[in-house]
């Protein structure tokens, strides 16, 4: 598939307003402003666009749920927190195609009747924020953002809001809390943001890549978008490939593409690094179950990956070769989850730490067989018992690695050490300090 969202990312000057206008920029906005908000929502619904932030929820439906009759202001919050391990696609879009995102934000605002969109960007993306602010100023000067956009009487502003280091700020209600100047902790749902979101007003939270798909849908039509991919999985999709592949990077293709192609095709990942074989892949950022080499002949679509028992999530493929110790990998991820737990729900706050401690015990060589059942028990007491999906995310690396690689855990415990030849990690002094 010919790239759509990332077509010009390698073009010198490709991020500038001038260039964007030369290649038909803001035509989607112009067209949408000639449509009623309901017509815009309908087209997006027909296109079947599904959210690219992780859950794959239909975007048109999300916009339709926004309470338009409410007398309160409405808001679009663009989720640019991009903190899911293994995910780096929004980074590329914002840095190399910022006007596409602004155009998507403006169309979304028109669709739900909002006058302001906030782009919530993670604190570490300082350099990306600089690009966004610079280009936003140009768009404002050109009358594309602000009052009376394109002379149509449509007023809409976009502001970039910088976070300060918190994975949980990517969860939509925690993002809203953080935008309100509070700790990034999730809210009890319902009410959903569509009814009471930012400042208690009707709000839609959309991922960067999701919003970047909207201009194409408006200019080319719902059908053109849908037919780029399998049924219910239409449009272009960005995949982030990292880990033990020859060509890590962001690749745009249709969701017809299989996971195997993404990992092995020279156009994409290019196969496993020299002299090694694939052990497993986490297909959707760190929070989803692992897939084995024999499970890869499925379309890398929301439904395709779900049918194999995992999730497309944020489409971050973390590829691991045979030298990777799965106890170590689970330990690495649980350190992340215990570090990032926002502390609101007890199962996640306490349980994440327990899981990490138990994994460290096994890594150190002090594990006992009963620790495996204890790991499962603790993990199962986190999953599904927290306000947001963080709990499930934290439990998953433990549940999936024990399910798929139990023998490896048992060998660790029996031998009192990692049994993989290439493992230099158990004796690692920095690791031991944790």
């Amino acid at each position: 598939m010919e790239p759509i969202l990332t077509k010009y990312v390698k073009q010198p000057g490709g991020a500038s307003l001038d260039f964007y206008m030369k290649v038909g920029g803001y035509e989607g906005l112009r067209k949408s402003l000639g449509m009623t908000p309901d017509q815009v929502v309908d087209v997006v619904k027909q296109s079947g666009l599904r959210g690219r932030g992780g859950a794959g929820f239909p975007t048109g439906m999300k916009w339709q749920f926004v309470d338009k009759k409410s007398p309160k202001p409405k808001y679009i919050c663009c989720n640019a927190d991009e903190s899911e391990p293994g995910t780096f696609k929004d980074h590329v879009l914002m840095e190399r195609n910022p006007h596409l995102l602004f155009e998507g934000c403006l169309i979304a605002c028109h669709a739900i009747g909002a006058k302001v969109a906030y782009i919530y960007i993670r604190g570490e993306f300082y350099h990306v924020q600089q690009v966004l602010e610079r280009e936003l100023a140009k768009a404002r000067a050109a009358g594309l953002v602000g009052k009376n956009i394109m002379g149509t009487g449509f007023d809409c502003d976009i502001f970039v809001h910088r976070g300060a280091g918190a994975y949980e700020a990517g969860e939509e209600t925690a993002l809203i809390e953080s935008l309100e100047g509070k700790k990034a902790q999730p809210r009890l749902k319902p009410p959903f943001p569509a009814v009471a979101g930012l400042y208690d007003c009707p709000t839609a939270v959309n991922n960067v890549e999701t919003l970047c798909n909207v201009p194409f849908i408006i200019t080319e039509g719902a059908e053109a978008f849908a037919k780029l991919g399998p049924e219910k999985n239409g449009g272009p999709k960005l995949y982030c490939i990292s880990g033990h592949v020859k060509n890590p990077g962001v690749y745009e293709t249709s969701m017809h593409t299989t996971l195997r192609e993404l990992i092995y095709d020279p156009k994409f990942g290019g196969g496993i690094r020299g002299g090694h074989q694939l052990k497993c892949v986490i297909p959707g950022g760190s929070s989803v179950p692992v897939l084995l080499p024999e499970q890869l002949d499925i379309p890398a679509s929301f439904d395709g990956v779900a049918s194999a028992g995992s999730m497309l999530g944020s489409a971050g493929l973390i590829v691991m070769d045979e030298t990777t110790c799965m106890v170590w990998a689970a330990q690495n991820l649980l350190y992340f989850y215990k570090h990032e737990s926002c502390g609101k729900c007890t199962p996640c706050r306490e349980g994440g730490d327990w899981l990490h401690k138990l994994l460290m015990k096994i890594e150190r060589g002090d594990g006992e067989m009963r620790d495996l059942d204890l790991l499962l028990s603790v993990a199962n007491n986190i999953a599904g018992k927290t306000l947001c999906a963080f709990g499930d995310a934290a439990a998953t690396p433990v549940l999936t690695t024990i399910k798929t690689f139990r023998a490896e855990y048992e060998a660790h415990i029996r031998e009192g050490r990692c049994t993989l030849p290439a493992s230099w990690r158990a004796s690692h002094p920095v690791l031991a300090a944790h």
Partner: protein
Amino acid sequence: MSFHPLMEYGAGHHQSARVLPEEGPAFQFTAANLAKLEEICTRYPAERRKSAIIAALYLAQGQQGYITLSAMRAVAAAIRCSTAEVEDIVYFYTMFYTRPMGKHIVMVCRTLSCALAGAERVTETLSKELGLRPGETDANREFSLLEVECLGACDRAPVVGVNDDWHECQQPEAAKALIDGLRAAGAGSLTGCHLKVAGE
């Protein structure tokens, strides 16, 4: 009693202790920073100044290098909220520092994709080279070494952040080169973000 019948409780780790922020030298925002903050506040509804709290803390940290109780009070006054609310934010988000840091804050990403590329050894060699354990700052306040979580550039692992700049594909063997480069040329010695396109 523990929440889980088989997990020990009360042994060191789980005992909580409230950390009190240091008073620090008297802090006042510069006029330029106050003006900048007022501009940022206009982005939010007038009665929602609290939305600018993170921005205010960045300004305070930019001015003083770290956040003290005195700075928290100045932020609270500017945002018109309580000091406790500011303290909450400072301790929750990882990018605010409550003690003086080095001129170069070297942050090694330790999450899975970077770890698969040897991030642990990057930390190890940097640690040896600087004589610092992760979390520490040297006596001259030249370097701080930190481990951080996924920076969102995993295709260029291992990724190292230095203050607001990035350095990518850091090999463990090149720790000395990274540090010498920072000493000699500051951020100019870093690779920056790979998305910079040739010809720009």
